[in-house]
Structure formats: structure tokens, C-alpha cells
């Protein structure tokens, strides 16, 4: 049995850990540790809530990833692959929830402490407004545009990674990000906020 706190394992790449986890599940713990915070933030953003539900989804994401480890395509980044699983799980929860008609108001979402890395948005988009305002704008966006913008600016993903996560061609991702920026701008203008550099 490997020592899961071993420094050596921490230096292994995701792909190497996947190969080892196929032989010994304890190695999978390293991958869980590497991705739990990022994925939790991502799931929270997608389901617009930080709750036990998000943690349940996260656990399910890891279990699903473990079950499907042999489906991991080494031509993709492991991060893209596991984000895709998280994307699918969160969307599936979102749809289930939608069918139960549990709506969360825009203000509620804006009030939630989602752990958004809004500073990166402030830097990337050159905006100088508070986190609350940015969260409020994001909550009014079309979910598909919101997601690509968040992946780009909150998770620092490049276009190829976003393409692998949402399973759309890179050209489409690029177009979606442009439209997302436009929508962000429109909503901010509607709310009388001026963002010069978007």
C-alpha cells in the first residue's frame, strides 16, 4: 500500500497518477486532493449554490471519474477530463432541480459566498467594481455564456481545454466567449456600470 502523503506522489503528473490509481485506488486520493477545491468552486458556480448538495455532486464526480478511469484519453489534459465529468454532473443536477421548479433569485445568488475568484475577472476584464456587482452580473447571464466566461477567467482555462470540457469545437468556444463578453457588457450597461476594456 502506498504512503498517500509521500512527497514523491505529489510530484507525479496527473496522467502518471491515473496509471497508478488503476493499480491501487489509494493513488486516486492524490488526484482528489489536487482537484477538490477547484472542482467544488466550479460546481458551485454551475449550480449557483454552495451547499451540501455541491459537495455531494463533487463526491459523485470523483466516484464517476474513478469508475471511468480507463476511459481517460491521454490526448486530453486530466483537468479537462474531470472538469467535463463535473460539468455533466452539475448540468444533470441543474436539470433535475429545474424540473422540481426550485428557483434561486438573482439577489440570493449575488449574496452567496461562492468563493469566486473575482479578482481575476477584475484583472482580466479591467473592471474596477466590487465582487458583489460582478457576481450579480454573472447571475443574470445566459448559463452557457456564463460558464465559458467563468472557465476562461476564474479557472484560467485556455480555449482548447474549454472545448474539451463543454465538447464544442474551438471555433465555437471562441465565438461563445466573444458573445459572453458582449452579454456581460450589455448587462453591466443595463445596470449602469461602465466597463471600458471588455
Amino acid at each position: 500500500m502506498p504512503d498517500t502523503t509521500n512527497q514523491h506522489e505529489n510530484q507525479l503528473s496527473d496522467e502518471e497518477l491515473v496509471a497508478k490509481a488503476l493499480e491501487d485506488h489509494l493513488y486516486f486520493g492524490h488526484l482528489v486532493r489536487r482537484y477538490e477545491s477547484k472542482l467544488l468552486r466550479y460546481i458551485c458556480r454551475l449550480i449557483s449554490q454552495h451547499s451540501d448538495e455541491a459537495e455531494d455532486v463533487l463526491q459523485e464526480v470523483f466516484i464517476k471519474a474513478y469508475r471511468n478511469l480507463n476511459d481517460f484519453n491521454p490526448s486530453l489534459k486530466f483537468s479537462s477530463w474531470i472538469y467535463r465529468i463535473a460539468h455533466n454532473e452539475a448540468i444533470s443536477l441543474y436539470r433535475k432541480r429545474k424540473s422540481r421548479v426550485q428557483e434561486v433569485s438573482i439577489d440570493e445568488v449575488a449574496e452567496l459566498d461562492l468563493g469566486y475568484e473575482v479578482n481575476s475577472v477584475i484583472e482580466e476584464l479591467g473592471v474596477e467594481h466590487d465582487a458583489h456587482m460582478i457576481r450579480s452580473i454573472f447571475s443574470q447571464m445566459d448559463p452557457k455564456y456564463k460558464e465559458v466566461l467563468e472557465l476562461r477567467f476564474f479557472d484560467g482555462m485556455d480555449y482548447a481545454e474549454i472545448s474539451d470540457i463543454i465538447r464544442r469545437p474551438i471555433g465555437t468556444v471562441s465565438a461563445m466567449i466573444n458573445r459572453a463578453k458582449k452579454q456581460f457588457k450589455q448587462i453591466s450597461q443595463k445596470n449602469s456600470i461602465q466597463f471600458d476594456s471588455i
Partner: protein
Amino acid sequence: MENIEQKVLEQIEQEHIKPLSPWLFWVKDYGIWVIFAVSTIFGGLAVAIILDSVASQDFEFLRKTGGSILELLVLSVPYIWVAAMAGFFLFSGYALRHTRNGYRISLIRLGLFHIIFSILIGVISFSLGLGQAIDRFMIRNLPYYEHAPKLRGQGYWERPERGFIFGSVRDIKTQQSFILQDPRGDRWQVLCEMCEDLNPDIRIQDVLRVMGERRPEMHFEAHMVRFAAPMVPR
């Protein structure tokens, strides 16, 4: 946040969860490629049948009678096969999109690649006579299909007001006059005094296409007469 790592590892141990076999994913991936290949080939064969159906029309007679090629094409295209072709195109496009990296191909590229590929298969199959062979096979084995190929383009020759009639010979009165019954059951007295190259071997039950002018009281003055494939009653 509770210790997710611990919870995940515990669940794996307690529920004895194991990674699914790589064979399962292999079968899934290759299965999708097989669906793609089969539906693309079927789409190509549908193209071959369409080409065969259009090519089997009497364009020479059409040219002589000065008819519209476009109209004949519209009336001779087997729409059921066009629908089947579209269905196979969509199905194989869907399958390709669901292959491992299929989502990376844009819809426009996917559509273009697909259409070119299927048409290529269709043209090759048509030139090898596969379109006709499939059509014949279906005529022999599919109930109700036997009339479908004969109906293609038949409507074009069933327009007396435009100078075309089509039907089988019921009675031969003189060398230059006979009775023709069209698919609707109407009987035409055809006069061939002005006919070009009238075939003297016309017999009762022969199916003919006639170009000429409609005259009162179910008379038809023929300018050209041509043998045709058996008709389908309306």
C-alpha cells in the same frame, strides 16, 4: 468542507468500486465508429438509388419533345430515398459527433465532409450498378415497394393539357389510330397521322408515352410515340 478525499476512498472501499474494464470503452468507441460507417454507406447507397432513378428517365424523348428537364427531375426524384438519405446523413453525423474527439469538428466541416463522402460512395455505387440492384431487390422483396420505381417521373407524362399522355394500348383501329387507356382509366383515341417514326410493331397492352395535342372528346393528336415501362394504375 469535510474531507472529500477520505469520503471518496471510503466509498470506493465499502462499495468495492473498481474501474470499468477498458474493453467496455473500446467497444463503445468502436461501436460508434461502426454506426458511423454503416450509416454513411447506407446514405451513399441512397444517393446511388436516387442517381439511378434520375438516370433511368427518358431524357432523349424529353429533349425531342422540348419538355422541361427540371420538371422531369422534380417528378422523378424518389423522395422516400431522399428522406432516407437525409436520415442516414443525420444519423452518421450524430455518430461522428459522439466519437471520442468528434466534438472538435465544427458542424460546417462535419456537414461538408459528410456530404462529399456520401456522394462519392453514391457515385461509385451507382457506376457499379448497385443502386439499380438494390432497387430491384426491394421490388422483389418489399411489399408495396414494387410500384414505387414505376411511379417515378410517371406524373410528368400524365398531363394531356400540356401535350403528354401515357397509358397502355387497348385497341388498335388502324395503322394510325389506337385507343390508349391512361393510369386513371381514361381512354384516349390517339390519331397518329402526324407521327414521326411511328413504330409499326405497336401491340395491345404495350405501354406508350405520347406527345401531341389534346383535341375535343378524348381525342389526342400524336406527334411522337414512344414505348415506356409498365405503368402503375392510379
